[in-house]
Structures are given as C-alpha cells and as structure tokens.
C-alpha cells in the first residue's frame, strides 16, 4: 500500500527534527564542557591548591575558597540530612496516607525547584541582618535549605520502594514500628538514600546565588564560621566580573575544579545506582 508523498515527507521531517533536537542538546553539553576543561586545564597549577586567593595583579590559588566550600557543604549535610531523612520517613511510613503528608510532599516539590536566590535573601533576613555581619554559618544554613527537599524526596521514594512484606515480617517478629523502620527499612534503603545525599551535594556544591548575601567571600585565610567565608562559587562569580586577566584565569581553574567534581559525583552516583539494580 502506497503512503502519500506528503505523509512520507512529514515522517522524514519528524525523524530529522528529533535527531537534530538531540544533537542540539548534546552540542551545548560538549561545547560548555570542552571550553571549561580546555581553559581550566590550561590554568591548573600546583599553587592552585596551596595558595590563597590573590589581590588583583598577582598570582595565587583558591585554597581558602576550596576549604570554605568544603566546610559549608559538610555543615549543610550535617544540618539538612537528619531533618530531611526524618521528614521523608514520615511521608513514606507513619504519615503515608495522611493529609499532612500529601501537603508536605507537594510543598517539598516546590521547594525543590524554588529560586535559590530567594533562599539566600531568606537567610539574609533571618540570620545575617540580625547578626549584623555575613558568615560561613549563614552560608551553610542556606545550602542546608537547598539540600533538605532533595533528601526528603529521595528518602520518601526509596522507602516506598521497599515491599510491605518486609514491614510485615518485622511486625510479625513483634518489633515496634520505630524499630522496623530503623533496623529493617533504613538498612534496605540505605544505598538509595546515600545516593540522594550525594546528588544533593553535587547540587549545593555549585550553588552561588544563596551564598552571595550569606557567606559572601573572604580574600584571606579564615576558618571562622562566624565571619565571611571564602567559597568557590562566589570566588568564580567575583573573578568573572572583574576586569583582571589573572582573576579570569583563576576563575576558569575554579570552574574546572567545580565542574569536574560535580560531574564525577553524578557519574559515580549513576554507577552505584546501576550496581544496586543489578545486585
């Protein structure tokens, strides 16, 4: 049976369009990564990881920024994870069919996509303005708020994936519900929850907007969480905005480190997830 020419052409056009669209997406990915890695690799030096951010016109490194970012991410995980796991547990276990759980699930998804700059403003109003100064602690708090919904969501999803027969087996042994959750369900969901936390870390590692008015930046070495704290994203932001070539080079090096970290973490997580599926 012959297909009319116009229909066949429409089909070929759709085929070409879909292929072109995918190529379009992949071209951007390649272009962005290629530029970041080429410019960044050229700017990589050993002193990058040992020296402090320099004043304009001289060379230096980003050690203080890497340290500050690491500390704030760690603190955000310490603050955000317990709350997130607890809330996710409620959504999947005790509260599974309650109205509260439905509402929290809904609001959590909105927080997941909420503009991160508004979270920065929120912590500014809540912490920075009251304290009267920027601080690494405020920065960590705003990162924790961004991490929280990610942890809530993954905890909820990974607990819901566990078959109810596992819960019933625990109850049949006479275990109270909290022990079933803690000793059986958390064990079964552990790798999935960890995956979620790792993805959350990858996300907050690059967050810049919420740190602009909370941690700000610090050109010098400081480990004081109650004072402005250097961090990689804001260093990149300020150096990109500056007119100095040395700072642009350092910004590319920082971008390279940041992108490599985030991509490696993402790939690692996918490998873990795939292994979990097979095992």
């Amino acid at each position, binding site marked *: 049976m012959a297909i009319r020419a116009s229909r066949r052409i429409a089909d070929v056009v759709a085929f070409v369009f879909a292929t072109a669209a995918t190529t379009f997406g992949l071209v951007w990915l390649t272009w962005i990564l290629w530029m970041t890695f080429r410019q960044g690799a050229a700017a990589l030096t050993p002193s990058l990881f040992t020296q402090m951010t320099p004043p304009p016109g001289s060379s230096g490194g980003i050690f203080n920024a890497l340290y500050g970012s690491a500390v704030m991410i760690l603190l955000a995980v310490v603050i955000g994870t317990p709350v997130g796991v607890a809330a996710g547990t409620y959504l999947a276990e005790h509260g599974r069919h309650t109205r509260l759980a439905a509402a929290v699930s809904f609001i959590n998804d909105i927080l997941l996509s909420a503009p991160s700059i508004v979270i920065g403003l929120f912590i500014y109003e809540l912490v920075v303005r009251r304290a009267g100064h920027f601080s690494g602690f405020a920065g960590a708090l705003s990162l924790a708020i961004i991490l929280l919904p990610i942890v809530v969501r993954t905890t*909820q999803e990974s607990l819901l994936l566990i078959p109810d027969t596992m819960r019933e087996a625990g109850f049949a042994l006479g275990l*109270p519900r909290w022990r079933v959750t803690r000793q059986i369900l958390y064990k079964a969901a552990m790798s999935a929850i960890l995956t979620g936390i790792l993805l959350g870390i990858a996300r907050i590692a*690059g967050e810049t907007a919420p740190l602009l008015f909370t941690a700000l930046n610090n050109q010098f070495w400081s480990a004081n969480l109650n004072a402005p704290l250097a961090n990689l994203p804001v260093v990149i932001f300020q150096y990109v905005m500056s007119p100095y070539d040395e700072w642009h080079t350092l910004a590319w090096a920082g971008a390279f480190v940041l992108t490599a970290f985030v991509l490696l973490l993402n790939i690692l997580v996918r490998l873990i997830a795939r292994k979990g599926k097979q095992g």
Partner: protein
Amino acid sequence: MNATAAKILEAPRPKKSGAGADRTFELITSGAAWFVLVLLAGIALSMAWGGRLAFKTFGWRFITSPDWDAVGGHFGALVPIYGTLVTSAIALIIAVPVSIGIALFLTDIAPRWTRGPIAIAIELLAAIPSIIYGMWGLFVFAPFMAAHVEPWLSDHLGGKAVIGPLFSGPPIGIGMLTAGIVLGIMVIPFIAAVAREVFSAVPAPLRESAVALGSTRWEVLRHVTLPYTRSAMIGAIFLGLGRALGETMAVTFVLGNAHDLSASLLMPSNSIAAAIANEFTEADTDLYRSSLIALGFLLFVVTFIVLSIAKLLLLRVNKQMGRTH
C-alpha cells in the same frame, strides 16, 4: 500498608514498652515534615516582611514604573519583570520543541543501546552548575553571538515590519536574546526528562493500533502520543518555566544589568534574579534593600504559582498511571 499489617498494628501488644518509643518516633518524623511547611511559609513571610517598606512607599507603581534610580530613591520593577518574562519566553520557545524532539528520539528513533548514554548526557546538562553556564555565556557564547548571530539577525530581520524592532540595535552579544538562549539550554533537561518518561508510558496497544492503521511515526506522535500526554507535557513546560523564571547565575553575566526598557532582544536588560544578585550587597539604604527583597517576594510568589500548576498537572497524570506519588 495493606490491611493485614494494619490489623496487626492495631492488635493489643503483650509488651507496652514499644508504644512510647513509637509515639516519640512519630512525633520526631512528623515534626520534621511540619518543618518543611513552616520553612516555605517562613520564606514567603520574611520576603513579604522585608519588602513591606518598598510596597508601602511605591504601591502599585513598584510593578508598573520603569524607573530604577538608586540615587534618587525611586524603585520601579517594570524592567526586571519585563526582562524575566521575555528571557523565560525565549527559553521556552527553544526548549519545548527541542525537548519533545529529544523525547521522541529517545523513545522511538535511537538504537536501543544508545538510549541510556544519550539520556544521561542530556541529564548532565542539568548537573552543570549554573555559574558555569553564566561564565561560559559571558566568555564564550556572548562573543560568538556578537560575531556571528546578531549581525545576521539585525541585517536580515531588523528592517522587517512588526518583528524588526525586536532585532535592531548594535550586536554586542549581551542581552535578552543571549540570556534567553542560555536559559533555554538549562531547562531542556528538565522538560525532556518528564517528556521522555510520559512518552514511554503511553500504552503500547494505543501506539501499535495507530501503526496498524497505517500511521507514520509523525502521525503517531501528533495524533496519539501528544494528545495522550498533553497534561503531563503542559506540567513539564510549567516546571521548565518555574526554573527559567528564578534562574540567577546563568543570566546575571549575559543580561547586562541595564535598567532601560527596550523592545530589542539584542539590547542589555535585567531580570528579577539578576538585579538582586548584582545589587543586593551594594544596597546602601533601607528602601533600596527593601525594594530588592520585594523583588524577591514577587519572584517567589510567581514561581510558587507556576510550580504549583506544574505539580498539580503532573500529580493528575501520575494518578492516571496508577502511581502513588
């Protein structure tokens, strides 16, 4: 939880010791769940509270006036609002068809073994930090636009009736068009992920019957897949819109931080998020700071509405497909 387990839970317990701990555990977890709600309310309230001075001083003029004069103390947010809407619109015009194309490619066209890797590559677009997009946009993409794309646009389209004013002006590379394109690239993975998921959830018999009736692939997409997944696709588009409206770092560098209202997409402009990022630490008066927080309040309310619509549409679809969340 099924009926058997529920009955066992309600049955009297020989030992009472578990009950107290159970109650505590439930209190802790439900407290954390409440915290999520309180957090969202807290963000909205603190934005409203921080912006009250600006809203009280300017009233509706805060939204309708294009004057943003830090020295004179007049703040009207029309330019950032306009810039936010225009750049987000450009982003969606690019991202929606591309995402549908990617989803079609991944569910229908690509050889099976390439689907996983390509899908991961598209997802990685969402993993790249937005500051990297911004930096690449400023140092690589804006010069590219200025050298190759914008001169062509203003030569060929700048003189036309109706759309001419959109593409006139000097090709400086920084402006709403460049920012919109960068935003478009950023939201592609979000829309494409949902599109791919719902495309592959279209029941096979539906598609197969269309094919059996002699439909081409294009006709299956146009008359079966897209109508079947319509509300999910609209949800996905709103999700992308919510992301585009609030994106900060990717557009701050390439928008140009200008407070002039201009019809041309090639001219520098501003967006709500970019204005806050650029000016907040420089805001030296209470009114200035309050105006920026008021901008944050507007952004939060608008993205809340857009994301709620997205979530409601996607929830409905999930229910149809028989999933619980």
